[in-house]
């Protein structure tokens, strides 16, 4: 087996496009499930058929989230650059959730402290995750600069 053959067999875990696609799928599934769950939880007296439909949609969303999560942890690892992209995508997903939650709250003309708490907690998590990802990448970039042959000549 040649190095080129090895690289072609590593195509899936090394493909940035695949990693981002799996991540997007996971976040989309999670966000959609959360929004549908929110709608379900805040809407009183829903017909049974609608509740079943919501349950099915939430399950589908969670399945996609689980699949995407499995893929990025087991099949296509996230490198420093991907982690920053992932963190930004997470922040985007949080923003989508916030807009959706706000819309639901405004339409119902009723403030839900629990919903606001969840949105705020997720926002903090997204911010912390983004900061950690950026710091990890910055540390590696600094190390790369220190180790680069040109750095030694200076």
């Amino acid at each position, binding site marked *: 087996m040649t190095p080129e053959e090895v690289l072609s067999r*590593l195509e899936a875990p090394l493909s940035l496009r695949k990693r981002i696609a799996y991540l997007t799928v996971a976040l989309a599934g999670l966000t959609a499930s959360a929004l549908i769950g929110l709608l379900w939880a805040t809407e009183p007296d829903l017909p049974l058929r609608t509740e079943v439909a919501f349950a099915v949609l939430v399950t589908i969303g969670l399945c996609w989230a689980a699949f995407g999560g499995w893929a990025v942890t087991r099949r296509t690892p996230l490198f420093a650059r991907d982690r920053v992209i992932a963190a930004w995508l997470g922040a985007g997903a949080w923003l989508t959730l916030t807009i959706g939650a706000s819309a639901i709250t405004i339409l119902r003309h009723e403030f839900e402290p629990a919903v606001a708490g969840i949105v705020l907690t997720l926002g903090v998590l997204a911010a912390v995750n983004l900061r950690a990802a950026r710091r990890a990448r910055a540390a590696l970039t600094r190390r790369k600069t220190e180790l680069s042959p040109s750095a030694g000549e200076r």
Partner: protein
Amino acid sequence: MSDELLVVRCQLGEREAFTELVQGWHPKVERYVGRMLGAPDDDVVQEIWLAVVKGLPRLRHPDRFAPWFFTVARRAVMNRLREAYTRPEPEPIDDVQGDDAAEGVVHRETLAVALAAIPAREREVLLLFYLEDLPLEACAQICAVPVGTVKSRLNRARRLLRQELVRKGYEA
């Protein structure tokens, strides 16, 4: 370019760095797998590379890439050699002195042929210590045993290698 720089670039996600890493390390993987298993095995080599790529983001000390890499490779090889490992290990022989004369005389290629006849545990430490030039501490880390055990395995391995070479008609 140093291995550490290459690993850091890989951890950042630079595609070209992976190409360089594979090109630089692939011959070592093939050699290790081939000598440990007695024959080339593409499946094990691929398994090792997959595990390396998946594990790289979690590697905290890029400067210690070589021991980590061989730990990953060893795991894959050991899975393949599990049957051989079911045999009870002989008692460690601590009082056997290293036979440096044999080391100096034997050509590397001759060594490779004779290695195949040595049990996996002993063959492994010889490969890591002499052929990959890893320090005793790194060998111990890779094999997940104390340094003393590596030393005793090296002693036993040298003795077995010498016996094997004598049996084949070489002067020790």
